[in-house]
């Protein structure tokens, strides 16, 4: 038998009545302070609020009345007799032990790392590679429309130059990614300056400004190989999916504090985003570098044009932590390293 104090609220008026709750067998008896019986209810018909920190607990009766009590130990016994093996009981077990909270915190960190480092990139990759062509074409078409409308103008390059580059491009994409559809187009863009883009459909855009600052077709081959690699590995689609995944992850982490999210959530999203893009840029650079080395042209021309682009694009975010392109110096350094390693390997094989 358990007996404890509680406040009784009938659910019709806001006045509370101090009562005693008395558990006998499987029935609870509620009686007023002076011992008058008020109500008796089978325990299993009551609804007991789950334990939550040191907050008071509520016992709800079928008639809409309820009792509120701060005698947590007594309610706990009641809850156990009631068969309170609910999900919230388990949650409360975790919440009330520092050790479990610590484990949850570690689990949280590990899970977030696994999701953001492996699961989301892997899922994005799978989805990106399984998308049918007509969808990626449609997407590229509308993206091109927006690009053309906002930044690009019709190319004013000589047809001879264009055709020469298109011929080079044909050989190049057949060698890097045989059997896939690719197309090279030119646009003038004073706004963007020397640059190149790849759309998921295999359309590669080169700006007139880029052709103008190039001193050798091998330099442009490096750029084209880089863009073809973006398409081959579906970097564009993958980064869209990854960014959405990260955004979802962060908003579910900080979702409870809407007001702070604005500042708190954008920062990690930005950081994660630039981290992913850097990886993709590296992969594309590597493909381009290996192609040039394999052709026996060395990565030097590609290095040169990268440095020149950096100098020419005024707004190139050299020192920004958020830049998606790895700093040009770093990229050139990586290319050089790639070439040196290759030479060492080749000499080893020959000997």
């Amino acid at each position: 038998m358990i007996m404890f104090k509680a406040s009784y609220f009938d659910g019709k008026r806001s006045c509370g009545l101090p009562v005693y709750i008395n558990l006998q067998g499987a029935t609870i008896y509620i009686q007023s302070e002076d011992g008058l019986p008020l109500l008796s209810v089978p325990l299993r018909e009551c609804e007991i609020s789950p334990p939550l920190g040191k907050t008071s607990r509520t016992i709800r009766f079928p008639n809409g009345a309820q009792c509120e009590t701060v005698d947590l130990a007594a309610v706990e016994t009641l809850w156990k007799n009631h068969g309170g093996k609910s999900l919230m009981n388990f949650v409360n077990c975790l919440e009330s032990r520092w050790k479990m909270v610590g484990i949850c915190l570690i689990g949280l960190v590990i899970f977030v790392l696994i999701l953001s480092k492996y699961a989301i990139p892997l899922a994005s990759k799978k989805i990106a590679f399984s998308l049918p062509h007509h969808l990626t074409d449609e997407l590229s078409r509308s993206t091109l429309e927006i690009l053309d409308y906002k930044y690009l103008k019709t190319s004013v390059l000589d047809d001879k130059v264009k055709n020469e580059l298109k011929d080079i491009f044909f050989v190049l994409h057949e060698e890097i990614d045989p059997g896939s559809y690719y197309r090279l187009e030119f646009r003038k863009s004073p706004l963007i300056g020397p640059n190149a883009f790849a759309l998921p459909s295999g359309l590669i855009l080169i700006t007139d400004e880029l052709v103008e600052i190039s001193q050798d077709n091998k330099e442009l081959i490096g750029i084209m190989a880089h863009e073809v690699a973006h398409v081959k590995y579906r970097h564009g689609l993958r980064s869209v999916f990854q960014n959405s995944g990260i955004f979802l992850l962060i908003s579910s982490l900080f979702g409870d504090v809407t007001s702070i999210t604005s500042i708190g959530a954008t920062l990690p999203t930005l950081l994660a985003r630039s981290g992913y893009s850097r990886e993709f840029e590296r992969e594309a650079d590597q493909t381009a570098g290996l192609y040039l080395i394999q052709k026996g042209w060395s990565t030097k021309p590609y290095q040169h044009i990268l440095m020149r682009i950096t100098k020419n694009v005024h707004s190139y975010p050299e020192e920004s932590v958020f830049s998606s392109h790895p700093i040009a110096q770093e990229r050139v350094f990586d290319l050089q390293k790639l070439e040196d390693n290759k030479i060492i390997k080749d000499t080893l094989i020959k000997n």
Partner: protein
Amino acid sequence: MDNLICKNCGLSTSKVDLKGISHICPGCGSSLETEVYKKENGTDDIQMQSEESRLYYPRFTGSANEYFKIWIVNTFLTIITLGIYAAWAKVRNRQYIYKNTLLDDQPFEYTANPVAILKGNLIVASGAIIYFLTYFYKPMYSAIVVGLFYLILPFLIFKSLKFIAHNSAYRNIRFRFLGNMKESYRIYIFYPILILFTLGLIIPYWAFKKKEYFFNNFAFGATANSFNGKAKRFYKIYLSAFVIFIISILILGFIFFTVLIKSGLTSADVSNKSFIMKNVIIAYALMIVVVTYFQQFIYARITNYCWEHSNLGSLRFRSTLKAGTLFFIRITNILAIILSIGLLIPWAKIRKTRYILNNITIMSEKELDDFKAFIESDVSAYGVSATEAFDFDIGL
């Protein structure tokens, strides 16, 4: 001011509508009658406080320590269930705050059914997926999806207000939200459109309408709250906030550039990118500080004003929030959250809640146990919530 009473459901309100349209009970739809008992003259006056009126101070007993544990565990469960548990986490977090808010030693309660919230979350999630797919495949149409979202937003806000009120209870009496959907559409679609045409001059009026929508429509059991605030005051608050904003921008801008020039600014510096970056970051941080003060000033003044111009039956409220303190709490909270990579979120929330609740006083001529439940909702107290599944944190 006469009290109106509904003979059908027992709702009583002191709302006065000169056009006489609202002499229909917002709760059950039957006609309202003037209550026989009339209040003494001068009850509208806030200063008026009869000697017998009792003062109640809400007490907030939540601890950052305890809430941290709850928050970590529930966030963890949300993440490993890929968001499904979020509904349960929400109920638990909110219940912790409610249960630790004591008025006259009795706690508030949040009674939402997590399954109902899960349904709402799923609906919102499918909306987001539709938006994402459209944006991805037909970017041209994504504007239409956004448009549709704004079209249903007033509906969601209305449902959410109803849901939250219905699931908030004190002394086993539920709160209610009596506003109607039409008004929600007027407030969340019509006025925002007018902002463009009025060059923003309508913003204070819009803020007023939003507050009025809430304060004039919530009810505790059968007792409806009535709000007698005026839009004029909102214009005054916004004007002072705006003046403070401009002055602080001018002063800070002046100091910023003076320091910059004094420190020996050379033309080499101007073209140095890291130098520019550093100063852009400083300027941005200063901007955040100024904007935060602006927001907190408006929040403090408006919240104080709205509570002081509300009466819930015989209850009156006083709110004494200070813009400076709120601003300090907010800035230090943001810093703490950033520096702790989010771990101090629970601490920040408890701290802010405690400050706001500690500044509310409730004045009552009678004891707090004289409120009646709204009978209709009382019968079907459980299960109603299943149809109203939305619970969004609306910045009220």
